[in-house]
C-alpha cells in the first residue's frame, strides 16, 4: 500500500469513524451498525415468537389439553403471528438490505443515514411495547390480522387491540423509512458503471421490496389508525349501523397484507440468487427473466388481496378475477425456480451449507406454492378456509420461502459481517434438523385442515380424531427448536472462535466481497468503477477507480438512475443523537395515544424540539472559504 493510500485510509477512518461511549452508541448513523442491530433484534424477536409457537404446539399436542387456557392461547397465537410478520420477517429482510445494499452497489453509507437510525429505534421500541403488553396480560388476542368487529370496541374490551394497532404504526413507520432509503440508495448512489442492468439480483429484490412497502404500508397504517380512532375516540369507520363497513377493514388490511408476504418473500429470492451464483461460480441463467419475474411478482402481488376474503360473500366477477390473479402470480415464481435449476444444472455446485438452504427453499417453497394455487380456487378455498390447511400453506411459503433463504444468507454473509466463517458441519446438522423438523411439523397440517380442524382453536375433543396428527406435528416442532438452537450456537460460537475469513471466501461476484471482512468504516478505500454485471469477476487488472471525492468530510458520489454516470456529490451527516431523541418522543406519542387522545397535542412540542435539533444546520455543513475540488475524474488504481 502506497503512502498515499495509507494517508487516504487514515483520513477516511477519521471521517467515517463510529462514535464510542454511551452517547455515541445512540448516535451512530452508520449503515453497517444499524443493519447488524436490525438483524440481532429481529432474531431475538424471532426466538421469542418461536417459543410462543412451541407453547402452542405443546397445548395442541393432545386433545382437551389444559396447558394453556383459551385467553392465554388467544394472546399467544396472536402475538406469535404478529411478532413473526411485523417484528421479524420484514425487519430482518430490511436489516440485510441496510447492511448489504450500500456495499453491493459501491457506496459508503445508505441514503438518509439519520432516518435509518430513527427507524431502528422506532422498530425496537415497538417490539418492546408489544412484548411488554404480552407480559402484562394485555397482549392482543384477536389474531394477527385483527378483524373487526372482533377487534372493535364491543368485542375487544380493554387495551389489547389498541396495542396491536399501535404496533402496526411503529413497524410501518420504520419499514417505510428503510424502504425510502433503499430506493434512494439504489437509484442514486451506485458506483459509476453499475447501470441498472448490472446491479446484483439481490439489489433488484431489495428495490422491488422497497417499492412494495411504499405502496402497501399506507393501507395498513390507515386501517389500524381507523381502528384506533374507533376504539379511542368513537368514530364509526367499521360500524355498519352508522354508515361504516366491517369489510372495509378486510380490504384495507389485505391490500397491505398480501403484498406484505411478497415483501417478505422477494428479498429471499434475491438471497437465493446470490447464493446460487456464488456456489456455482457462474452467472445466474436468465438475468433479464429473473429481474422481470421479480418486478412482475411485485406488481401482480397488489392484485390478489381479495383471495383472503373469498368467504365473505363477494360478487362472482370479483371471485373469478382474484382467482385468476392468484394463479397467475405463480408464473413469475415458477420462472425463477426454473432459472435457478438451470443455473445449478449447468454449473458444478459446491454443496456447502448456504447452498443446502437454498435447495431446501426450492423444495419447501414449491410445495407451499402448490397448496397456494389450490387455495386460489374458490370452491376449494370455501372448504378449507380458516382450517389448518391454510396454516400449513402459509408456513410452507413463509418458512420455506423466506426463512430458509434467510438462514442460508446468514451462513453466506456471516464471514463478511464478522470476518469469521461459520462451522460447516454444524451448519449441515442444523439444515437437516430444520428441514426434517419443518416437514414433520407442517405437512400433517394439510391433512388436519382437510379433516376440518379449524384455526385458532385452543383445544379439541378426542373424538374428532385429530390427536395423532397433532402429536406428530408437535414432535416435529421439537426438531425445529433443536435446529434453531443449533443455528444460534453456531452463530455465537463462530463469532467468537470461527476460522478467519478473507475478503472473498466463497469466490463470489458482487462488490461487497471486494473489501475486507468485516468492511472498514468507510466500506471501500476507493470507490470502484464497475465493468460488468458481476463486478468482481468482470474487474480487470487495472480497473478504474473514482477520485475527486473529499475524504475529510462525509462526501458521497451521486450518480444517474439508469447508467450510473456521475452527476454530483452529496454530504452525508455525522453521528448525531437527534434521531434517537426523535424516536423516543415518537414512541412515547404512539404509546400514549393508546390510552388518550391528549397524547397528540402533548407530544407535538417535544417532537418539534427533536425535529428542530435534527435539522439544525451545523457549522461543518457550510463550506466556507475553500474551493471545492474540480469535477471528479476516473484515475487508474
Amino acid at each position, binding site marked *: 500500500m502506497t503512502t498515499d493510500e495509507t494517508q487516504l485510509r487514515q483520513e477516511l477512518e477519521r471521517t467515517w469513524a463510529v462514535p464510542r461511549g*454511551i452517547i455515541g*452508541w445512540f448516535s451512530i448513523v452508520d449503515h453497517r451498525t444499524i443493519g447488524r*442491530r436490525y438483524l*440481532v*433484534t429481529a432474531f*431475538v424477536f424471532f426466538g421469542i415468537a418461536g417459543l410462543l409457537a412451541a407453547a402452542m404446539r405443546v397445548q395442541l399436542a393432545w386433545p382437551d389439553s389444559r396447558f394453556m*387456557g*383459551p*385467553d392465554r392461547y388467544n394472546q399467544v397465537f396472536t402475538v406469535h403471528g404478529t411478532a413473526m410478520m411485523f417484528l421479524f420477517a420484514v425487519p430482518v429482510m430490511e436489516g440485510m438490505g441496510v447492511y448489504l445494499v450500500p456495499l453491493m452497489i459501491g457506496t459508503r453509507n445508505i441514503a438518509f443515514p439519520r432516518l435509518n437510525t430513527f427507524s431502528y*429505534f422506532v422498530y*425496537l*421500541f415497538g417490539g*418492546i411495547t408489544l412484548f*411488554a*403488553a404480552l*407480559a*402484562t*396480560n*394485555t397482549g392482543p388476542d384477536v389474531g394477527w390480522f385483527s378483524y373487526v*368487529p372482533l377487534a*372493535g*370496541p*364491543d*368485542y375487544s*374490551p*380493554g*387495551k*389489547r387491540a389498541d396495542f396491536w394497532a399501535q404496533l402496526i404504526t411503529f413497524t410501518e413507520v420504520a419499514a417505510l423509512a428503510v424502504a425510502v432509503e433503499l430506493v434512494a440508495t439504489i437509484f442514486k448512489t451506485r458506483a459509476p458503471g453499475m447501470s441498472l442492468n448490472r446491479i446484483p439480483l439481490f439489489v433488484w429484490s431489495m428495490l422491488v421490496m422497497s417499492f412494495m412497502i411504499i405502496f402497501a404500508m399506507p393501507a395498513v397504517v390507515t386501517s389500524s389508525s381507523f381502528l384506533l380512532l*374507533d*376504539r*379511542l*375516540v*368513537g*368514530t*364509526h369507520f367499521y*360500524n*355498519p*349501523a*352508522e354508515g361504516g363497513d366491517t369489510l372495509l377493514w378486510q380490504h384495507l388490511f389485505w391490500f397491505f397484507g398480501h403484498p406484505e408476504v411478497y415483501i417478505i418473500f422477494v428479498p429471499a429470492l434475491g438471497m437465493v440468487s446470490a447464493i446460487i451464483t456464488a456456489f456455482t461460480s457462474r452467472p445466474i441463467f436468465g438475468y433479464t427473466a429473473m429481474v422481470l419475474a421479480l418486478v412482475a411478482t411485485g406488481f401482480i402481488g397488489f392484485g390478489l388481496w381479495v383471495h383472503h376474503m373469498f368467504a365473505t360473500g363477494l360478487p362472482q366477477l370479483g371471485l373469478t378475477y382474484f382467482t385468476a390473479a392468484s394463479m397467475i402470480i405463480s408464473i413469475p415464481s415458477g420462472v425463477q425456480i426454473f432459472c435457478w435449476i438451470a443455473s445449478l444444472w449447468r454449473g458444478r455446485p459446491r454443496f456447502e451449507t448456504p447452498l443446502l438452504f437454498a435447495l431446501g427453499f426450492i423444495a419447501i417453497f414449491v410445495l407451499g406454492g402448490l397448496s397456494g394455487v389450490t387455495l386460489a380456487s374458490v370452491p376449494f378455498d370455501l372448504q378449507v378456509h380458516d382450517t389448518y390447511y391454510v396454516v400449513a400453506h402459509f408456513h410452507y411459503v413463509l418458512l420455506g420461502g423466506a426463512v430458509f433463504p434467510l438462514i442460508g444468507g446468514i451462513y453466506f454473509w456471516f464471514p463478511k459481517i464478522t470476518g469469521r466463517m461459520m462451522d460447516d458441519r454444524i451448519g449441515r446438522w442444523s439444515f437437516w434438523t430444520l428441514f426434517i423438523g419443518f416437514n414433520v411439523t407442517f405437512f400433517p397440517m394439510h391433512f388436519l385442515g382437510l379433516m376440518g380442524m379449524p384455526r385458532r382453536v385452543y383445544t379439541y375433543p378426542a373424538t374428532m380424531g385429530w390427536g395423532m396428527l397433532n402429536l406428530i406435528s408437535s414432535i416435529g416442532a421439537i426438531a425445529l427448536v433443536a435446529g434453531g438452537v443449533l443455528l444460534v450456537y453456531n452463530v455465537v460460537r463462530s463469532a467468537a472462535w470461527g476460522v478467519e475469513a478473507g475478503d472473498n471466501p466463497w469466490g463470489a461476484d458482487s462488490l461487497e466481497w471486494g473489501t475486507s471482512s468485516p468492511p472498514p468504516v468507510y466500506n471501500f478505500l476507493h470507490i470502484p468503477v464497475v465493468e460488468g454485471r458481476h463486478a468482481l469477476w468482470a474487474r480487470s487488472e487495472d480497473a478504474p477507480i473514482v477520485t475527486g471525492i473529499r475524504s475529510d468530510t462525509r462526501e458521497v458520489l451521486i450518480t444517474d438512475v439508469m447508467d450510473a454516470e456521475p452527476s454530483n456529490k452529496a454530504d452525508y451527516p455525522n453521528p448525531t443523537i437527534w434521531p434517537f431523541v426523535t424516536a423516543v418522543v415518537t414512541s412515547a406519542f404512539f404509546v400514549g395515544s393508546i*390510552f*388518550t387522545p391528549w397524547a397528540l397535542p402533548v407530544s407535538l412540542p417535544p417532537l418539534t424540539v427533536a425535529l428542530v435539533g435534527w435539522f439544525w444546520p451545523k457549522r461543518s455543513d457550510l463550506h466556507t472559504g475553500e474551493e471545492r475540488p474540480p469535477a471528479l475524474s476516473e484515475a487508474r488504481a
Partner: protein
Amino acid sequence: MSRCGLRIVPCALCLVLAACGREARPFDNIPSATANATTPALVQLYAGGVPTGPPPVSPFQQNAWGISEGKRLFDAYNCSGCHAHGGGGIGPALMDDAWIYGNHPANIFETIVEGRPNGMPSFRGKIPDTQVWQLVAFVQSMNGQAPIAALPGRSDHLSGGTPENLRPAVKPVQTGHQ
C-alpha cells in the same frame, strides 16, 4: 438493546399494576349459572343507611371484560327497556350524578337483586351473581366511575349517545327519592 430495556422497566411497572386488573378474563373462574341465595343480604343497606362491616365490592370493578359483559347483559336482560342506555325513561337515568339508593357497588347490587320501590323489579334467582356484578360494574361505568382504560368505547349499533369512555366523570350524589 439491554440499555433501552432498562429505561422501559419503570414504565412497565406502571403498566403491570394497572393492566393485571384491567385485562383479566376470568373465564374459568365463573361458576355456572347459580341462582342467588335466598338468605338475607350480607349488608344492611337501605336508603341513607350506614353499612355494617365492609360491603362486598364487585370483582369486575376495574375489569374491562367484566364491564363489557355488563354492557352486553344490560341489553340482553332488557335493562335498557326502562333505563334506555343510561338516559332513563320509565326508570331513572343511570348516567347522571344522582343516585337514589347510593352508588357504592353493594348498593347497586342490592338494587338489582332486591328490587326497589316504584318499579325496579327484583332479579334474585333470575340473574346469576356473577352477571349481577358485571352489570354493577357497567352501571358504574356509565358515568365514569371506572378507570378510563377499562371503559367501553362506541358500540356496534346505531349511536346511542357519547360512548362511555368519552363521557366526563361525574361526582355521584346520593339524593334519595325526589
